[in-house]
């Protein structure tokens, strides 16, 4: 998995580049990137689609259209004029539009795109049509820009629940095992939370750093240049002054 940034869409042309490198090296690995509907308005998305098409990159470009970008509905990114899947046609690459809340459909579409890429037939754009039930983040209150019940009214349901129902209907799953699994996973999550708390909690009002503060200067460069070495020492001295215990 590759890192994304706060700046939106940067990862999409990067994925195309990674895929191009794989092709250059005669590798069989493909790349996949995910982007939101709103973020497709960024110039990087245009660059990604152009390069992907021109170089027939073995990449899957997923547009997760959950209808919202903070308070901006998908129309502000042009979603009312055409679908996000249809944009692919303009770039000469295939576009699929999938019910994003149907896990099997998503799997099938992704499989198709992956096979296509692996057979050196190039990129695919997949629009996952879904809904952002909650707010954009814990700092966002969606009642400021959409009706309160909007989340519960999405006609395509909840993906996990749909899969569960499907498996039960097939006779492959049952409510008892679901309850057991829920409990087990809840337990895992809570245990992980507990363990992580023991490693240190970020508190705004203290300088009880959860890790060695010198690591701030790790990985700025491959090797630490003189001016960063100097600053690192300054920083450590500063914290020694304040804490009297080395800030580690």
């Amino acid at each position, binding site marked *: 998995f590759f890192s994304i940034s*706060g700046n939106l869409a940067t990862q999409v042309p990067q994925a195309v580049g990674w895929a191009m490198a794989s092709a250059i090296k005669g590798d069989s690995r493909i790349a996949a990137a995910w982007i939101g509907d709103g973020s497709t308005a960024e110039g990087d998305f245009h660059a990604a689609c152009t390069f992907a098409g021109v170089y027939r990159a073995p990449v899957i470009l997923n547009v997760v259209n959950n209808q919202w970008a903070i308070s*901006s509905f998908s129309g502000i990114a042009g979603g009312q004029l055409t679908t996000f899947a249809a944009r692919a046609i303009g770039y000469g690459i295939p576009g699929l539009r999938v019910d994003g809340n149907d896990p099997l459909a998503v799997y099938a579409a992704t499989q198709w795109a992956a096979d296509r890429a692996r057979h050196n037939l190039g990129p695919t754009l997949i629009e996952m049509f879904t809904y952002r039930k909650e707010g954009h983040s814990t700092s966002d209150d969606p009642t400021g820009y959409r009706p309160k019940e909007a989340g519960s009214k999405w006609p395509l349901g909840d993906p996990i629940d749909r899969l569960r129902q499907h498996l039960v209907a097939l006779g492959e799953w049952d409510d008892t095992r679901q309850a057991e699994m829920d409990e087990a996973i809840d337990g895992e999550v809570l245990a992980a939370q507990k363990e992580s708390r023991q490693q240190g909690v970020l508190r705004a009002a203290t300088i009880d750093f959860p890790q060695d503060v010198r690591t701030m200067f790790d990985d700025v460069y491959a090797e630490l240049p003189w001016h960063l070495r100097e600053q690192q020492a300054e920083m450590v001295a500063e914290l020694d002054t304040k804490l009297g215990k080395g800030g580690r």
Partner: protein
Amino acid sequence: MTIRNMIEALNDAHHVMMERDENVVVMGEDAGYFGGVFRVTAGLQKKFGKQRVFDTPISENGIMATAIGMATYGLRPVAEIQFADYIYPGFDQIVSEAAKIRYRTAGEWFVPMVIRSPYGGGIFGGQTHSQSPEALFAHVAGLKVVIPSNPHDAKGLLIAAIEDDDPVVFFEPKRIYNGPFDGFFDRPVTPWSKHPDAEVPDGHYAVPIGKARIVREGPELTILAYGTMVHVALAAAEAAGVDAEVIDLRTIVPVDIETIEESVKKTGRCVVVHEATRTSGFGAELAALVQERCFYHLEAPVVRATGWDTPYPHSLEWAYFPGPVRLGNAFKKALED
């Protein structure tokens, strides 16, 4: 006169200018209907309509470019970049176009736009919500760069920026949107309502661009600061027992060189503070200016207290942010004989 926090002051500046000049338009991500993620543009769309206050697609490139186009048409766009960290896709338009159109058209076209954006750290915003990129813009001829440190100045400077016929990059220190921050993160947060600079005149007034403010007079040491660091400098000087002259630059380009020179020639010692990374931060320019013009008055080298040369960390916020300890050390160094 009304007590306002910085957000309310900025919001009021928009209301005042939009009423005064029908060419002022406002645009940005979530800035229209919702009024902005920090609520700075709240209420404007309802009052002035969708033609003048509108949501943009997520495209800083597109926002800057279309705002430039509107400005050359004759509008006065106030275009928001949601976080300064996101400004880079728009950098080409700002640097290659907004900054240069007047010059390459011999004044036939010009770009009276304001690019406003929350900047700076102290909020555990990490790498992508804490950056201070002002030096990148200060380095580009044709741009003005303005940074308020309090609600009174925020409103007055934004009004001045909107009225200015040059492109103004207006950075708003988000840490102090709701209340001043003195760098002592373990003290309780105070709102602006208790602060004298929260008294914001109603209606129209302007704080001149290019003019600094001496926030505190003092004989021992000149401290040059802007944004959140004005408050940190005041508190750090008090904690260190230094009788400092604290200057709030307010505009970094064009900087108020007269006020700076007069102060340093009086005190003979100078400390420059900013959150931004040290190498080639605006402090480097200030240090150069001070030593060029005040060399024979200086008793000690100019000292910089800045952020480190790393991407902005998240959990190590208080090891990064230039707080009272770093500033105190800088004062000590500058006061050495």
